[in-house]
């Protein structure tokens, strides 16, 4: 039971929650850039939670389902057509064998997720099916998906109430994308980094008052931010230390770099900030050319926000599971 890639789109790869626990070996986590969107796509098709989905970037792929499947799309809005019929996002859709799903360009945002019931069941590497494009780990040595790739679908029981369909079926209910998809350019919460205090006065202000533009050199490893250059009061000689997704580094150019899902595990640039975890998916949805600005947050505020979002997400996941159980 396979999904075959007809056209790969701009940059499509399999992603799950990533591979935590291997940073001491130099292996980063990778995983979905917009974790809530990935998680909700899996929930909508009744997956248990850790299954791999296709992460699409700016322009989605076209795929053919060789067997009937249950799918869901979440994340940035994009044109989706199943054998010529429009398919909405944030809902469940049953597709008959032989159907072709064509995903177009995203109107806003940068990343969408295509989940399938059972998950894409490629061989896990170090406990994850995530493609780490930078470290070349995952399906086909972590390269992006290509035309002709055959992705096996994992085995899963059929959902209650729906069997052996011959025509496409779209569930009558869908999720409100808010607050899970937020493409506004509202400031991202940023914690002061270990070396924030070493910025000169203007740069300390500029980090929170200035506007940056996400450069086209950005990828899953890092978002490069162009703007008024920031400067340290005096140059720092640093030894390499841990870096994380969300770490804002300042290379000598003065243009900050926000590390993302494929962040290297160590780095030697000054760390001037840390993007609050709750706002990392929002950063992941910025596209090259979009504005990025920051507002200051404390660790306590960021931790409280993260815990609140996690409770809200867990509640929604439970409600979705309940509706699927009821055959809705």
């Amino acid at each position, binding site marked *: 039971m396979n999904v075959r890639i007809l056209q790969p789109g701009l940059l499509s790869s399999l992603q799950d929650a990533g591979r935590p626990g291997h940073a*001491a070996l*130099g292996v980063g986590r990778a995983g979905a850039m917009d974790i809530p969107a990935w998680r909700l796509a899996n929930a909508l098709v009744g997956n248990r939670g850790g299954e791999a989905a296709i992460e699409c970037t700016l322009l989605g792929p076209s795929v053919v389902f060789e067997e009937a499947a249950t799918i869901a799309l979440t994340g940035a809005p994009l044109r989706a057509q199943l054998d010529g019929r429009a398919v909405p996002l944030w809902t469940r859709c049953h597709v008959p064998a032989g159907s072709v799903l064509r995903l177009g360009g995203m109107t806003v945002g940068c990343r969408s997720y295509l989940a399938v019931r059972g998950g894409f069941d490629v061989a896990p590497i170090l406990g994850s099916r995530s493609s780490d494009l930078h470290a070349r780990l995952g399906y086909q040595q972590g390269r992006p998906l290509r035309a002709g790739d055959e992705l096996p679908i994992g085995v899963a029981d059929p959902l209650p109430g729906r069997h052996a369909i011959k025509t496409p079926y779209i569930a009558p209910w869908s999720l409100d994308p808010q607050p899970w998809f937020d493409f506004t350019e509202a400031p991202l919460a940023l*914690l002061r980094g270990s070396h924030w205090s070493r910025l000169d006065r203007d740069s300390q202000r500029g980090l929170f008052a200035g506007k940056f533009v996400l450069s086209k050199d950005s990828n899953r490893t890092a978002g490069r931010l162009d703007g008024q250059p920031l400067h340290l009061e005096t140059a720092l000689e640093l030894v390499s230390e*841990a870096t994380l997704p969300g770490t804002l580094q300042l290379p000598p150019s003065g243009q900050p770099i926000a590390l993302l899902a494929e962040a290297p595990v*160590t780095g030697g640039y000054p760390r001037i900030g840390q993007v609050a975890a709750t706002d990392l998916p929002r950063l992941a949805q910025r596209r090259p050319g979009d504005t990025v600005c920051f507002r200051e947050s404390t660790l306590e505020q960021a*931790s409280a926000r993260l*815990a609140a979002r996690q409770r809200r997400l867990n509640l929604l996941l439970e409600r979705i599971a309940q509706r699927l159980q009821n055959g809705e």
Partner: protein
Amino acid sequence: MPWIEAGRKPSMIAEPQFEPLAEDALLLRFGERIDLDLNARVQAAASSLHRQLPQLECVPAYASVLLRFDPAAWAGADGHPHQQVQAAVLAALRDTDPVSHAAHEITIPVCYGGAYGPDLLDVATHVRLPADEVVARHTGAEYRVAMLGFAPGFPYLLGLDPQLAVPRRDDPRQRVPIGSVAIGGGQTGIYPQQLPGGWQLIGRTPLRLFDAASEPPSRLVAGDRVRFQAIDEATFRQLVPGDPP
């Protein structure tokens, strides 16, 4: 085997500092230098914490250990996971010999120079030593894996003869062959896969350092002791048939 004579009492060593990094991460800092003693304390702490607090992810670097945790699991009654983690780490470190650490010893065969180490002659010229003296000094030292980083399984090795320190290349290579043994500044390392890189290539090992499908995936871990042993081209080819330089 202890790294360093464990004669000093813990109280004589400066207490490590905690720096919050993110909602799910703290840095435990022992210092801010590249230094064998400092790194020995890092390795001892990381391996002790890994043993005592397996629910924490401990990632040693030169002078610090990253502690990553699940904030929900460590929230505690007052909802401050960082304080809970900090308290647990301090309690665990109280029972840790600050410099003792059981380390593996690994000998890495290297074919130096020629097509395997295309920068060996440049390095020799730069440090004003004959090429075979560079090799003798490189194989004569014992190294410690300070940390793995840059790419899966890439070891940063401490212990290079200071006379062999050479600047990185002005024009980094797009493709450094797998197994290349290189010098960058005062450090030496081994490229565990084909990667872009700016270090000076002095030789190549036929050993495969990292294979995600193996258990364990990395032949080296932080804290290991490493020696290099010179081998000739025939031995290299015997070990890696069909891998032309």
